[in-house]
Structure formats: C-alpha cells, structure tokens
C-alpha cells in the first residue's frame, strides 16, 4: 500500500528543497536537457526490449537463436535502463512533492515493478529450458506470454509517463 501523503510529506519536502532538486527547478534549461536524455533512454529500453519480445512472441529476428538475440540486446537495455532511472530520479527531485501526488507517476512505477517481476519469472521458467526451444519457431506458450506481457507493460509505461504532465498536480 502506498503511504499516505501526510506521513511522507516531510521526506518529499526535504527532497524538493534539496540542492539538486532546487537547481533543476530553478534552471531554465536543466529540466529539458535531463528530460530529453530520459526520453532517449526510454526509447532505447523499449526499442531493444521490443526486439526481444517480438522474438519471444514468434517473429524471427537477425539471430536464429533466441538466447543469442537476448545476449545481443540486453546490454543496451540495461545500460539505458540505468540512465533512465538516474535521469528520472533527477526529474523527480525537481518536484518531489508534485510527482509523489501524481497518480500516473505512481502507476508508472508500479508498472515498472511488474515488468521487472515478469522478466524474473521468464528467467526462472522458460529461459531455464531455452536449450529446448532456442532456435525453434513458433515459440512455446510460456515465452509468448512473457513477450506479450512485457511489450504491453512497456507501452503502458510510455503512456503513463506521458500522462504525468497532463494530469493533477503537474498539468
């Protein structure tokens, strides 16, 4: 359960008042620069994950084997994801009290957690037996389900991210 605003408001106000948060908020150009890097990193995360997800769903890719394709794409996904988290945290600091209250922001974080769990489940189940289906098409149902849910969640994450700027309290 999400803690109530009252119990967290002190922390959020401290983050809002932090030197970094204040610097980004008061600068005319820092926010758009950080936001541009954030959008680019999300494009890399979603673009490279989509390539893997589509292979899991059953579209052939530039690698015959699914495992080699995952090995090709995952470094890009992870590096971009780390930068997306860093830039996202900086954007959050610039208006911590506002983002904290934003429902699309809360749902976005929740969707990222679910996407992470989905990936963990895939790695602990279908990926363990990848030797059996690595270069086979169509893919097993467990891989299809992992691909479809991952793709759906990441598209949802993009929508929720965009919605933050169009809803209370940040519209």
């Amino acid at each position, binding site marked *: 359960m999400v803690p109530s605003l009252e119990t967290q408001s002190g922390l959020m106000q401290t983050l809002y008042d932090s030197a970094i948060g204040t610097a980004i908020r008061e600068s005319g150009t820092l926010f*758009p620069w950080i936001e*541009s890097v954030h*959008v*680019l990193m999300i494009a*890399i995360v979603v*673009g490279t994950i989509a390539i893997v997800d589509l292979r899991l769903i059953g579209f052939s890719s530039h690698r015959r084997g699914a495992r080699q394709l995952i090995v090709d794409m995952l470094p890009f996904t992870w590096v971009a994801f780390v930068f997306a988290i860093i830039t996202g945290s900086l954007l959050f600091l610039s208006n911590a009290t506002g983002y904290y209250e934003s429902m699309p922001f809360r749902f976005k974080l929740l969707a990222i957690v679910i996407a992470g769990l989905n990936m963990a489940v895939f790695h602990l189940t279908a990926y363990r037996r990848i030797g059996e289906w690595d270069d086979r098409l169509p893919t097993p149902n467990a891989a299809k389900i992992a691909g479809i849910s991952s793709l759906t969640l990441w598209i949802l994450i993009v929508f929720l991210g965009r*919605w933050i700027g*169009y809803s209370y309290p940040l519209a």
Partner: protein
Amino acid sequence: MSVEKFAQHLYGTAISTDLRETAWIVPAVQSIHIVAIAAVIGAAIVMDLRLAGVLATDETPRGVVKRHLPWMWAGLAVLLTSGFVLGLAEPYRVLTNLVFWVKMALVLTGFTLTLLFRYPILHPDYRIEHARAAKLIKPMAWASLAIWVLVVFCGRWIAYYQ
C-alpha cells in the same frame, strides 16, 4: 501565405479545435509517437551498429537489415502520421518553431541515408565489400544513428524552445 498565417488558419479549423478540446487526444498521440520512435531507435541500433562493425558481426548485413528495415519503415510511418495529427492540433507550437524545422531536416537526412545505405543491402547479390560506396558505409552508419538520437532531442525541445 506566411507560415504564421497558415498556422493561424489551421488553428481555427474545426478539426484542429476538436483535437485540442478532447483532453486525452494529444497525450495519447504523443505516447504513440514515443512508442514509434522507440521502434525506430531499436531498429537503428541493430542495423547501424552491425554496419559499423560493432554488433552481430557474424551475421550477414543482409540478414540484419532484412529483419529490421521493415520495422524502421513501419515506425517512421507511424511517426509521420502521429506527428501530423500533433501538428494539426497545435500548429503554432510546431510550424513557427525553429527546432521543429531542424528536426524535419534531420528526419529527411536520416530517411535519405536509410534509403541509400540500407535498401541496396536487401539485394541478394549485395556484397558489402564490393558496394559502390563501401568506404562510406561505416561512417554513414554512425551518422545515421547520431541523426535518430538528435531527432529525439529535437522532439522534446520543441516543447521548450520558443
């Protein structure tokens, strides 16, 4: 007719007003726009880094381009369509904005590079080492990747530059 006049005229049309006044349309179309740029960036990373000799070098350029070029075209088509709707909804925001025109010039350059350096690779007899502009392929691959990155930056800066 000047760009300002045209934007003003477009702003006053019924369709532009309808798009603006339905609150969810602009953010929804912007989200679709971002998902499409993600598809383009994903395809660009794999194709351009393969041609630059960095990624999947044990696969043929043809195999890599054959898989990813259709997704890049599809992504660009969605970008063009969704971008058109966004421009129709807020013509002032884009048509009179210098960053928008820089972005369009970059998109045209990226599109041309893709046509010139990716499309021929699909030909079954294509051999990268015998290609007409073989020496240009690597630098053009890096240039193409840089262009799509700049396109993303320009896209976000349209909202801030006046």
